[in-house]
């Protein structure tokens, strides 16, 4: 079938957000991914986050590369424009889109093959340019769409479904993001919706390059014993360094936090990140300290999740380029064409 029509059954009691939209208004087409695929849970988290943030869906642009993960933008935010580009090159398309209109919210969705294998270069460069976006890698350690080959994030020693063992060192996208200067770095797990929704909300509010590495098991090709990206393995090894509550305004901090175990980070746009510390010695505003912590714990086999780094006052690409506040795509002849009188002057200089 060409197109699966989703029944528009609006239950009268469905909760509405401030814009009067229901959850449904943030959904997209029916997913064609495998039942149980981690990626669908991430789509659900994205829908939840946008709903809770009261975002007008049409002010969001969704971009992706190629892969099962990159298909998902079709399955959420049906009222938003989407762009399913080419394999590994979403970051450049995102960069261009961002230059053209600085006023939209940009959601980039990619896979580990898309971002760590074929697209590692573009991944790194869009972070170092500080493109204002949320960049999510739905990380399953394999190429789902081409049927289960190892990707560059597969751990050394991890076993494929057919029994082959990966011998190459994995690329840690979180570490890369730290080194490339991303101003918001998080890791989450598709099986932990609560954590993921809060991280997505915080990332959207962040005005800079926000990266979320989301472990997202592939039930078809990488969910077996011996895999380090299976549901069971990730649940067993998940070590959250903090628990985040995203707040649009300063609220009373809940009383059950023992003194010294929580921190309130104010983001540039006035939103607050209420962080309950789970690892006492983890400071997500200290880039070097945090990176050292991550490397230590990763070496011990832990999958560290949570808000790993945030720069409360980030600087983004269009600010660095000093681009005018009016989106470039709204400028016309009057603002852009110097006119014939100037051309005459240029001609005169060339004689």
């Amino acid at each position, binding site marked *: 079938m060409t197109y699966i029509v989703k029944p528009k059954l609006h239950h009268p009691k469905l909760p509405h957000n401030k814009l009067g939209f229901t959850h449904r208004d943030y959904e997209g087409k029916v997913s064609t991914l495998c039942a149980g695929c981690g990626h669908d849970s991430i789509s659900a988290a994205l829908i939840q986050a946008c709903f809770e943030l009261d975002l007008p869906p049409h002010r969001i642009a969704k971009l992706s590369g190629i892969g099962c993960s990159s298909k998902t933008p079709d399955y959420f935010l049906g009222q938003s424009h989407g762009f399913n580009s080419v394999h590994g090159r979403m*970051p450049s398309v995102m960069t261009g889109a961002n230059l053209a209109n600085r006023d939209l919210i940009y959601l980039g969705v990619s896979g580990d093959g898309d971002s760590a294998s074929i697209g590692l270069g573009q991944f790194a460069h869009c972070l170092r340019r500080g493109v204002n976006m949320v960049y999510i890698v739905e990380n399953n350690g394999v190429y789902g769409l081409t049927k289960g080959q190892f990707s560059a994030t597969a751990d050394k020693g991890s076993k494929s479904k057919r029994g082959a063992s990966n011998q190459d060192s994995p690329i840690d996208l979180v570490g890369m993001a730290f080194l490339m200067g991303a101003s918001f770095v998080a890791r989450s797990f598709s099986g932990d919706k609560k954590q993921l929704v809060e991280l997505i909300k915080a990332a959207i509010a962040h005005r800079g390059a926000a990266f979320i590495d989301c472990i997202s098991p592939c039930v078809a090709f990488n969910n077996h014993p011996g895999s380090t990206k299976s549901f069971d393995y990730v649940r067993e090894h998940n070590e959250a360094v903090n628990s985040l509550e995203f707040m649009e305004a300063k609220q009373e901090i809940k009383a059950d936090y023992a003194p010294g175990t929580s921190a309130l980070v104010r983001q540039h746009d006035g939103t607050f990140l209420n962080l309950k510390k789970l690892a006492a010695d983890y400071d997500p505003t200290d880039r070097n300290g945090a990176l050292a912590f991550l490397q230590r714990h990763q070496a011990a086999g832990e999958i560290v999740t949570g808000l790993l780094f945030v720069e409360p006052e980030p600087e983004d690409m269009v600010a660095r380029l000093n681009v005018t506040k009016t989106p470039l795509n709204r400028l016309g002849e009057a603002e852009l064409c110097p006119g014939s009188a100037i051309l005459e002057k240029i*001609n005169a200089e060339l004689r």
Partner: protein
Amino acid sequence: MPARLERTNDFVVLFANVNGSGSASANRLFGRAMIRMGVPVGSRNIFPSNIQGLPTWYEVRVSEAGHLGRRGGVDLMVAMNPQTWDNDVKSIDSGGYLFYDSSKPLPPSKFRDDINVVGMPLTEICNKQYSDPRQRQLFKNIMYVGALSQLLDIEPEVIEKLIGELYQGKEKLLAPNVEAFHIGRDYARKHLNGAIGLKLRRCDRVGNKILIEGNAAAALGAVYAGATVAAWYPITPSSSMAEAFQRYCQRYRVDQDGTHRFAIIQAEDELAAIGIVIGAAWNGVRAFTATAGPGISLMQEFIGLAHFAEIPAVIFDVQRGGPSTGMPTRTQQSDILSCAYASHGDTRHVLLFPAEPGECFEFAAKAFDLADRLQTPIFVMSDLDIGMNEWLVEPLAWDDKRKYDRGKVMTFEDLEAGKDFGRYLDVDGDGIPYRTLPGTHPTKGSFFTRGTSRDRYARYSEEGPVYVDNMERLLKKFDTAKSLLPAPVRRNAREATRFGAIYYGSTTTAMDEAIGMLEVNGIHLDTLRVRAYPFVDEIIDFIRAHERIFLVEQNRDAQLKTLLLDTGRVDANKIVSVLHYDGTPVTAHFIVSGISRRMQEIMPVPLRRVAS
């Protein structure tokens, strides 16, 4: 005594120098002075892929008649590079002149009997005059310009004025340069008087023409057309276009508060550069990249996406010698096929062929209208000869009433009014659908852009008929393009003829001169300059109306001919290729001999009779 060429306002001077020796600005001064005297000059830099040390040449074509392409041959060689001496001396036309630095004696075997040798002990004079080695080198250049100005009757006031303009604000350099210039003149007056029979005579053939490089003109075209996003990766010979765009934007697109009405990204590679262009254009701005052959190769996948997803993009390909790294600082027209068919699957793209910087400006601006109107990549096929050399051309012109054609974009109001939006729906029968920009309307007009097959409403589909329907529409759109492109330029021979010639791009100037030369030899040709692909009927009709067509190109494989044959409407046997591809710009002499020789093969009978 060798014969002496005696010519006024019509000759070729070639400077042979060492790269990085500071000769370039002195040589430019020489050419500019002639233009200031009202004599048209075409000058070309032939340079190596190197910063210092390798040979470089600067050719100055003086032509009162206005033939500013390369003629072929050398009337005066200014041989300042010992490395290339032998070949340089060999290249002088019989009766021509060799001007050289005679500080060190050379054996007679280093010269020729049939040329006139003019020696000047430049190094010796400089060493006496200056102690700093850098000064010795730099002033040597200006000194030979002084000597040549004396020998060729270039007005000294004109050069002094130019030196003044050159060192405006750097007065410390001004006086010593003028002094060196006069040392050269004085020496020539005393010791070399009348040694050269080539002369300049003030005339009035330059008018209000300007001197500009094609890359700068193309960049200006992009500024005037309202391009706001540029993404590029440095590569010769295209870099100066991106740099010129930056320069002009800095001048004309900065707001009072210092913010920019433009954004330029030096990308990490050409894949990213075209990706940025596509993302930006998808989101509603005019965007471009400038590159050369290797960049085009890297961009292939993305170009296919822009073609299939129907996203405007403007690509300036400043062609150089291929394949691979090829001859990175030499010129060719050898990316025609790789651009026309860029990317996998059944793809074809619109190409524009500017002939000189004026058309670089015009076609650049046009390309943005075409890209928006046709929602597809548009290639502007410049080359190193046009892009990196300063050409004397008509002043650039802009009509202030001109409006940008932003093509079919549905607005909030359109959607609100209930217009049916199908992203790939052919509402007007021209194959061009409507698009919407992200963020336009809260509930209407959103769609999912993809490189995969989809139906008229942009919904994913793998059904054969749906796919075919879309591919047929794309063909129709390509056909629509023909009605929007710059028309070919036809010129009829003075006498009725059964023979025609087709050419394009930077071949034009040499071709114009060659046609005149052929006419003198009794070969009359109707000509057609192709300015765009896909080909309009006029081109096909021109070929059909002639018995034989000489197709002049600057590549080995007759790439434009291949494109013509691909239309399926042209008889291959009719087309006789004349191909120049050694990396230097084609010359009128090459074209004349190429066509004459083939004409002899076709018609061994004397031509005058054949034509009548």
